[in-house]
């Protein structure tokens, strides 16, 4: 499967057809832009759910301050996040296909990096990068689907985190307001909740269920 055959046109898998669900997910490719609090947890959930192939993209290395919410361990401090996450994912699912991309995404290299993905997950930190990823992916002529996040910081209610379909191929997870630039902390409970929303929205889209 590739984005070139327009994921929105695929027939939905029957909700109770476990075999068809497993088969579709195993044949799917998801690109994750950013492997921090959101991306590392999304990746772990997608692999546990049986998604067969992931492109993991991040330029950073694991730091001690990441361990409060990200899918990393103390003995991985200093290791490139894509390498550390790849190691963990292979412990969960030895057969998973991983492409590890240890570099910073730009408008020039993003499409070439995620080009064949069925769904792209935006899991970046900065608003500028989030907008760049959305503007590049959503303008892709084949209708590539983006599952983004916006508004995951702070201590507001977990029930305010939701999945929104803002446009045909653009989904946003979060409360759309809680900004780390306002000094709000990133807590594991809210970040991992948003990551679970992103992972589940991705799974539904892969299975042809396009409503959020």
């Amino acid at each position, binding site marked *: 499967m590739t984005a070139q055959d327009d994921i929105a046109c695929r027939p939905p898998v029957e909700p109770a057809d476990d075999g068809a669900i497993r088969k579709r997910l195993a044949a799917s490719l998801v690109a994750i832009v950013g492997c921090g609090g959101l991306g590392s947890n999304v990746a772990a959930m997608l692999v546990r759910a049986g998604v067969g192939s992931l492109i993991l993209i991040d330029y950073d290395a694991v730091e001690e301050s990441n361990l409060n919410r990200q899918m990393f361990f103390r003995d991985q401090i200093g290791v490139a996040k894509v390498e550390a996450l790849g190691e963990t994912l292979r412990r969960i699912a030895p057969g998973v296909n991983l492409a590890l991309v240890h570099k910073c995404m730009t408008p020039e290299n993003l499409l070439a990096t995620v080009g064949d993905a069925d769904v792209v997950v935006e899991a970046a*930190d900065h608003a*500028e990068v989030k907008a760049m990823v959305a503007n590049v992916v959503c303008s892709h002529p084949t209708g590539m689907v983006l599952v983004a996040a916006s508004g995951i910081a702070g201590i507001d209610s977990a029930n305010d985190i939701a999945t929104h379909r803002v446009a*045909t191929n653009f989904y946003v997870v979060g409360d759309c*307001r809680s900004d780390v*630039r306002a000094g709000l902390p990133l807590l594991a409970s809210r970040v991992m909740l948003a990551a679970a929303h992103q992972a589940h929205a991705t799974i539904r889209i892969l299975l042809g269920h396009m409503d959020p």
Partner: protein
Amino acid sequence: MHIEVALFAHLSEFQPDGRAGRGARPFDVAEGTTIGDIIEMLALPDEPRVLFVNNKHATEQTVLAQGDRLAIFPPVAGG
């Protein structure tokens, strides 16, 4: 001409009818108006944003047409 504007997140304070809140609002603009013109008319803050017209990605240079639905989404930081 008549269009509809949907402002997401904190941009809902800049609604064309002056009443803050969620939901798309009608907006009458001149023929040939671009999204960039709308951003200027509504005095939206200069910040990262993603633009859609009728559910398809657009740019500030996109010229709007009668009946279009413009959506403006401003992502906030945290990941």
